[in-house]
C-alpha cells in the first residue's frame, strides 16, 4: 500500500484507500479490545501486573477508549465512506492518493496520540484527553482530508440526487471538524472552571451524537437496501432522522453533568432535548426495520445483514436508555455508576460496532473482489461479539443498579466494591470474548484477501454462494 503514496493518481487502483483503512481499523480494533480486556482484568484482579507505571489502570483506560474510538470506529467510518460514497455517486473517489495519505497520516497520528497519552501526557479531560498539539494534528491531518475527499466525491457524483447515507457522511465529517475545534477550545485558549467542565462534555456528547451514532446509521442505510434489494422504506422519514439529529442531538450536552452545579435552566433544557433524541432514534429504527419487509429470512442467512440488523435492534434499548436515563428522575440513581459504562458500551460496542463490522465485511469483499473465506468463522465471530458484549452489558448494568442502590442507602463504599466483584469478573470475560473473536475476524479477512474465491465483474459479494 505504501508504494501508492508517491504514485500518480491514475496508477492507483480504485478502492486502495478504503482497503488500507479497512485493514488498519481491524488491527486497531484488536489492540483496543485487547486493552479493554486487560483493563477489565485489572478491575477484577487488582494485583495483576503491579509496580509498573505504564501498566497501571489509570494510564491505560483512556488509551483503550481512544484506540477504539479513533482507531476502530472512526477508522471504519473512513473505510466505509471511501467505498460507499463513490458507489452511491456512481463515480470514483475524488482522490485515491489523498485517501492513501490520509490513512497513513491517520495511523501515524494515532500512534503519536496514543503513546503520548499512555505516557501520561494528558489534558485531564474525559474524551478530549489528547493534548492540544495532538488535537490540532487530528483536525488538520486526519479529519480534514477525510472530509474533503468525501465531500468532493459527493460534489463530483454522476447521479442526480444525494442518497440518505451521503447526507450523513458529509454532514457528520463536517461537524466533526467543528466539534474538534470548538470542543478543544478550553485547551487552545485555556478556558477554566465550569466553562471548561461543561465544554468537556459538550465535546464528548457531540462526538458521540453527531459523529458515531449518525454515521453508524448511515452505514446501515446503505447495507440494508443494498443486500436485501428492497428500496429504503421512506426517504421522508430519512429526512426526519437527519434533521432531528442536527437539531435535537446537538443540544443536550449538559445532561452529562446533571449532578454538577451548572445553571439549572441549562440542565432542564438539556434534559428536555435529551428526551427529544427519541425522534431521530425512532424514525431511524422504524425506517430500517420496515425496509426489511419480506426479507427477514436474510437476517439469519446473510452474515452482513445479521450484523447490521443486530446493530439496529441494539439501537432500540440504546435510545430508550439514552432518552430517559438523563432525566432528573432517573439520573440521580444511575449517574456515575456501571449503568453508564454499560450504556456507553451498548452505543459503541453494541449498535455502532455491529453496523461497522457489517460495512467492513461487505466492503472488504467488494474491494478485494473476493468472496469471504469462511462463513463459519464469520458466524463464530458474530457470536463471540454478541455473547461477549451481552455478558459485558448485563453484568455492568446489574453492577450499576447495585451501585445506585448503595449510593442512595449510603452503604459504605467498600461493601459496594465487594458486591461488584463477581460482575467485574464477568465483564472481563465478556471483553476477552470480544477480543478473541476479533483475532479470528482479522485472520478470516486476511485469508479472504489471499484465498477467497474470486468474484466476477458485475456481481456483488452477497450474490455469490458460499462454497466452503
Amino acid at each position, binding site marked *: 500500500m505504501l508504494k501508492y503514496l508517491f504514485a500518480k493518481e491514475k496508477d492507483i487502483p480504485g478502492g486502495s484507500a478504503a482497503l488500507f483503512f479497512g485493514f488498519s481499523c481491524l488491527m486497531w480494533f484488536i489492540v483496543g479490545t485487547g486493552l479493554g480486556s486487560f483493563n477489565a482484568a485489572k478491575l477484577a484482579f487488582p*494485583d495483576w501486573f503491579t509496580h509498573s507505571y505504564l501498566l497501571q489502570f489509570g494510564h491505560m*483506560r483512556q488509551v483503550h477508549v481512544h484506540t477504539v474510538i479513533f482507531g476502530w470506529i472512526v477508522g471504519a467510518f473512513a473505510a466505509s465512506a471511501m467505498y460507499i460514497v463513490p458507489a452511491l455517486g456512481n463515480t470514483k473517489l475524488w482522490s485515491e492518493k489523498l485517501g492513501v495519505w490520509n490513512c497513513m497520516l491517520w495511523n501515524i497520528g494515532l500512534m503519536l496520540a496514543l503513546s503520548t497519552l499512555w505516557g501520561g501526557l494528558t489534558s485531564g479531560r474525559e474524551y478530549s484527553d489528547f493534548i492540544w498539539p495532538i488535537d490540532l494534528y487530528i483536525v488538520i491531518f486526519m479529519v480534514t482530508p477525510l472530509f474533503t475527499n468525501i465531500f468532493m466525491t459527493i460534489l463530483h457524483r454522476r447521479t442526480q440526487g444525494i442518497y440518505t447515507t451521503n447526507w450523513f457522511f458529509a454532514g457528520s465529517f463536517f461537524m466533526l471538524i467543528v466539534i474538534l475545534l470548538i470542543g478543544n477550545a478550553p485547551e487552545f485558549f485555556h478556558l477554566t472552571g465550569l466553562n471548561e467542565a461543561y465544554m468537556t462534555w459538550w465535546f464528548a456528547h457531540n462526538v458521540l451524537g453527531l459523529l458515531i451514532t449518525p454515521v453508524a446509521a448511515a452505514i446501515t442505510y446503505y447495507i440494508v437496501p443494498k443486500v436485501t434489494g428492497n428500496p429504503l422504506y421512506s426517504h421522508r422519514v430519512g429526512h426526519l432522522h437527519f434533521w432531528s439529529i442536527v437539531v435535537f442531538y446537538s443540544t443536550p450536552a449538559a445532561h452529562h453533568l446533571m449532578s454538577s*452545579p451548572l445553571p439549572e435552566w441549562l440542565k432542564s433544557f*438539556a434534559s428536555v432535548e435529551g428526551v427529544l433524541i427519541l425522534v431521530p432514534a425512532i424514525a431511524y429504527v422504524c425506517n430500517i426495520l420496515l425496509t426489511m419487509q419480506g426479507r427477514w429470512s436474510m437476517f439469519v442467512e446473510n452474515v452482513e445483514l445479521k450484523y447490521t440488523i443486530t446493530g439496529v435492534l441494539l439501537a432500540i434499548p440504546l435510545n430508550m436508555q439514552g432518552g430517559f436515563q438523563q432525566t432528573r428522575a432517573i439520573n*440521580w440513581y444511575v449517574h*456515575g455508576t456501571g449503568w*453508564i*459504562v454499560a450504556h456507553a458500551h451498548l452505543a459503541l460496542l453494541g449498535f455502532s460496532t455491529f453496523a461497522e463490522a457489517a460495512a467492513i465485511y461487505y466492503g472488504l469483499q467488494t474491494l478485494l473482489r473476493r468472496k469471504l473465506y469462511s462463513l463459519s468463522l464469520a458466524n463464530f465471530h458474530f457470536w463471540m461479539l454478541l455473547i461477549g458484549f451481552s455478558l459485558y452489558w448485563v453484568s455492568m448494568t446489574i453492577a450499576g443498579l447495585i451501585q445506585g442502590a448503595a449510593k442512595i442507602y449510603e452503604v459504605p463504599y467498600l461493601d459496594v466494591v465487594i458486591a461488584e466483584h463477581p460482575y467485574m469478573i464477568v465483564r472481563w470475560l465478556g471483553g476477552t470474548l470480544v477480543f478473541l473473536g476479533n483475532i479470528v475476524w482479522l485472520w478470516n479477512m486476511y485469508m479472504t484477501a489471499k484465498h477467497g474465491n474470486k468474484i466476477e465483474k458485475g456481481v456483488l459479494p452477497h450474490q455469490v454462494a458460499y462454497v466452503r
Partner: protein
Amino acid sequence: MGFREYRIGSILFGVALSSSMMITIYFPGLDISSVSSTSIALEKQLTYGKNSSFDYGDPFVQGKDKPIKVLLKKDPITGATMDDTNAYVFKPGTSLPSGLVHEHIMGAKVQALSVSLGKTNQVDESKGGVFLVQSSVKDGVETPYIEFATATRGWTVEATLAAADQQMLAGSGKTMFVREGCWWCHTLLPEETHDWQSFGRPPVVGDFNGESPTTFGSDRKAPDLLHVGSRNSSKEWMMMHFFNPRLVQPHSIMPRYDYLWGETDKQGNKIDLAKWDEEFNAYREGTRVYPPEVPEYRDDTEIRMLIDFVLNLK
C-alpha cells in the same frame, strides 16, 4: 450542488448548527462566566496554579511550575505570633492562575476588592510572591478576595518559606491526580441529591472559577474524594494505602502506586519491591505475623505531592 433543495438544505444546516451552538455554548458561557468566585475557588486557584495537566510550564506533566501552600504560625517578617494562616508561595517564574492574569475570571466584586484591598494589580510573574485568601464584610455580605501579601505586608518568597511550619505541594499533587488517572474512579463531585452524609457538601457554582481541569470524574468506582482530608487526615494511613491498598483495605481494587516512591526511601536505602511483595504474600498467607514496613518517602517524590494533594482536600 445541482438542486435548489440542496442549497436551501445547506443554508438550513448552517442555521440549525449555529443556533444550536448559540444556545449550548454562547448563552451558558455568558451565564457561567458571570458567576462570582467563592473563597474555595480562590483557594483552589492559589493552591493549584495555572493548570494541572499538559501545559507550557509542565509539558511532561510532572507537577512542575506549581505554587507551594504553607502554614504560618508567625509573621515571616516581624516574627510576631499570629493565628494559623495558609499562604500560597509562587516562586519567581511560576505561572499565575487565570484569576490573577485575566480580569473576568473571579467575578466583578471579587476582582475589584482584590485590586483595591489586595493590591493584586502589582503582581509580577517573573518576581513571584506570596498570596493570602481574605474576606471583607460590607452591608452584611461577605466577599472573598485575594491579598498580594508581598505588596501589602512585605512578605517575600524566601522569608515566607523560611518561616513556614509546613509546606504542602498540593498543586503539584493535583497534577499527579490528573496524570495517574485517580479521577477515572474517584469523583470530586458529591452529588446534590444524596451524597451529603457519605461524602459531604456538594460544590456550588462559584467553587470552580479559574480551575483547570476540574476533573469531576464520571464513573465512580471508588469513594468521592472532594472532602476526604476531613474524613481521614492521617499521612501514615495514606502512605500505606497508596503503597498497597490491600494493606489497609483487603477488598480494595485500587492499583498500587508503589512506583511513585522512586528508587530509594527517605533514609537513602534502595526500595526492593520484589522482596516487599514476597513478605506481604507471606503475611497474607499467614506465615508471617506482621506485614512488611512501608518505606518512608523522600520529600522530592511524586507520592509526596499526591499525598499532600489528597490531605489538602478538606
